């Protein structure tokens, strides 16, 4: 038997590239050539070990597969020498060794991967690689052996619910659109991932574009769609490129276009680049944007299923929802419905970011507790600090405290706690984050992104933001908490679309679980986290200060004194609290009180 060629794969999704992955790949190519090795250097999408980018996976016959993390171009020659030449695993850089226990193995082992099944495994630019991993089997099964109604029933039986945030049953949505009358019918993939702190859709689009395309073709067949659009954020150029490439290749294989698989079904898919408006994630606003106008929502009914793009029946599904579909058709509804809880089936992908030790993509079965996601998969809090809160669901979601860590993640438990499933952003914050400031941050975002059409959202979020700003500046008034609460409930109730309807959530949950922090700002003029500059004073820890004079030289108000190699001090009377010393200090000696 011929010897299998050695293979070295570099993770080159946006995050891998940002971490310097291209330089690592070039160095690998150079090293392999220099040493005359018979090894293939390839690239893949994001496997989700984002905390340890750049990632390199090495396959060599007779050795277990190894994923190396934190690789820089300088590590490449040692890696090649050790693993490829000498056949020895470079232990200090190995994150994951096939069949063995390593410190970071838990990250993947505790996950259940359906949506991310191919991410980080296949070459996203090769349709053949996708097919070799079972790709387009679902489409073949659907088109060759099932009626559109059977496909819809299968998805309904699987219990799949919309992963964009609202959690509406996908099969039911498809039934609405299939039953609507219209000359043309549209299926749209919502890839306008605008939630700050969420990047799972980008990872799927970059790492496994065909899963989304296949899901869309199956969905199109199920509802009788004549046209398909993928509405993708323009900020995701790599995703756009890979989608266009995927569509072209799928057409060549007759999975897409005219007379798909010889079964007489026609569908064309076009990628539309969004132009940057958060509100376009809302269905009716997205439709307006696809039609080339300002992306503003309109009242429903009529629902898009009856009157959508150009007044024709339109069905919109999120990226993650569609990526589930081929798996469901291939493996059957029963197998899918066996995962998860009573009301929430399957898995959910979360983006763990913030102060968590292992940040990255975490796909877990529905019903897994927050504790398991953050501490089991994520490995706990960075720098041994204390967990303070987890923000779920981005600007529409909420902040939950440690007392609620045992809440299961599903469509029923999270709303009960005041948060939402949302699209899947999970930002973990530690004791140094001010919750009032965090609420202010989200309100700044929603206020800026409010399209301005309806008054509760346009003016209400502005007024709430003004109150939060004055609280952070130490000018909060005793009545502010009540005023915030009242405004929040009014905005929720009377806004036209979900943007305004959910915008107050971050404020309401922080008020519910962290009211003491609001009170400290308003009544004691104190920021317990030491973050709000108007409420803190800056100090230098004489134990940590090395006397390097960097802060002395850069203080714009000349408020820091001290000689070389002796601890410095800040004159609080003249300090303008610009944070420059805090930013400049390399020894963590500057602190706030």
């Amino acid at each position, binding site marked *: 038997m011929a010897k299998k060629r050695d293979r070295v794969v570099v993770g080159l999704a*946006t*995050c891998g*590239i*940002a*971490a310097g992955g291209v330089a690592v790949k070039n160095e690998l190519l150079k090293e392999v050539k220099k040493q005359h090795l018979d090894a293939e250097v390839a690239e893949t999408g994001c496997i989700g070990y*984002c*905390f340890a*980018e750049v990632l390199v996976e090495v396959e060599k016959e007779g050795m277990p597969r190894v994923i190396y993390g934190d690789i820089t171009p300088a590590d490449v020659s040692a890696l090649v020498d050790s693993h490829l030449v000498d056949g020895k695993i470079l232990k200090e850089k190995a994150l994951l060794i096939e069949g063995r226990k390593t410190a970071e193995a838990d990250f993947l082992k505790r996950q259940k991967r359906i949506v991310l099944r191919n991410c980080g495994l296949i070459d996203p630019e090769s349709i053949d690689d996708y097919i070799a991993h079972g790709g387009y089997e679902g489409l073949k099964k659907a088109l060759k052996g099932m009626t559109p109604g059977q496909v819809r029933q299968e998805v309904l039986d699987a219990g799949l619910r919309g992963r964009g945030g609202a959690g509406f049953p996908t099969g039911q949505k498809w039934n609405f659109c299939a039953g609507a009358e219209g000359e043309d019918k549209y299926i749209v993939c919502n890839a306008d*991932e*605008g*939630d*700050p*702190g*969420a*990047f799972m859709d*980008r990872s799927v689009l970059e790492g496994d574009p065909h899963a989304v395309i296949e899901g869309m073709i199956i969905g199109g067949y199920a509802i009788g769609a004549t046209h398909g659009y993928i509405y993708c*954020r*323009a*900020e*995701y*150029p790599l995703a756009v490129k890979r989608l266009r490439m995927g569509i072209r290749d799928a057409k060549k294989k007759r999975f897409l276009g005219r007379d798909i698989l010889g079964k007489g079904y026609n569908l064309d898919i076009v990628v*539309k*680049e*969004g*132009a*940057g*408006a*958060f509100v376009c994630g809302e269905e009716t606003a997205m439709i307006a*944007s*696809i*039609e*080339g*106008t*300002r*992306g*503003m929502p309109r009242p429903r009914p009529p629902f898009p299923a009856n009157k959508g793009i*150009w007044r024709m029946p339109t069905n919109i599904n999120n990226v993650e929802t569609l990526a589930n579909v081929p798996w469901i058709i291939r493996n059957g509804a029963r197998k899918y419905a066996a995962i998860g809880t009573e009301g929430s089936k399957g898995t959910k992908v979360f*983006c763990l*970011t*913030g*102060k968590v030790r292992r*940040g*990255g993509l975490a796909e877990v079965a529905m019903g897994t507790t927050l504790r398991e996601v953050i501490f089991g998969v994520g490995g706990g809090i960075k720098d041994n600090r204390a967990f303070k809160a987890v*923000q779920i669901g*981005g600007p529409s979601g909420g902040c939950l405290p440690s007392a609620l860590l045992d809440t299961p993640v599903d469509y029923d438990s999270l709303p009960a706690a005041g948060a939402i499933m949302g699209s899947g*952003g999970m*930002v973990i*914050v530690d004791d140094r*984050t001010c919750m009032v400031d*965090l609420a202010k*941050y*989200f309100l700044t*975002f929603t206020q800026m992104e409010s*399209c301005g059409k309806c008054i509760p959202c346009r003016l209400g979020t502005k007024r709430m933001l003004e109150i939060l700003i004055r609280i952070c500046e130490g000018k909060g008034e005793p009545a502010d908490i009540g005023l915030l609460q009242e405004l929040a409930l009014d905005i929720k109730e009377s806004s036209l679309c979900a943007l305004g309807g959910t915008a107050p959530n971050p404020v309401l949950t922080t008020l519910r679980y962290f009211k003491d922090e609001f009170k400290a700002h308003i009544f004691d003029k104190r920021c317990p986290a030491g973050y709000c500059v108007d409420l803190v004073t800056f100090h230098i820890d004489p134990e940590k200060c090395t006397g390097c004079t960097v802060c002395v030289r850069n203080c714009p108000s000349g408020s820091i004194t001290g000689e070389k190699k002796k601890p410095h001090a800040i004159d609080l009377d003249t300090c303008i609290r610009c*944070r*420059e010393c*805090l*930013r*400049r200090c*390399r020894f963590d000696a500057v602190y706030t009180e």
Partner: protein
Amino acid sequence: MARNLKSGAVDSDRDAVLQKVIKKYIRQKGALIPILQEAQEALGHLSEESLDYIARATGRTLAQVYGVATFYTQFRLEPIGRHLVRICHGTACHVGGAEDIDASVCGHLGLSDEGGNTEDMEFTVEKVVCVGACSLAPIILVDGVAHGRLTADKARNVIKSYQKQK
């Protein structure tokens, strides 16, 4: 709105670019956004004259075109500097100190913390909401290239490296 294109030669160049872009989409219904995207890609920004040209050539009113161009954050009506620096303000970046990065980058370039164009038009600094690379927070994009895991010092050095490329 700034009127930057002064000479007649530049005007006809611009019109030729716009004509080509519009021709590509003329048969597509509702293609105003891709037209504006490609026009901006080719010309750097959308001047009043460009918007007027697009409006007339596509049978829309200037108000309709202006309305769309100002609704979406991607479109800019003013010229930008040689290097475009985008500072990410997604949640993870915010928690990770994006405001410190603002201060450091803008301070180094002599701009207010809000960003803008440098006087020599070498740099334009703007804040953006989440580039979707949260695990490398805080992060900035310079001419589309991402630089992650920054500190105030590292961010300043990134800008310096572009200043050297003259």
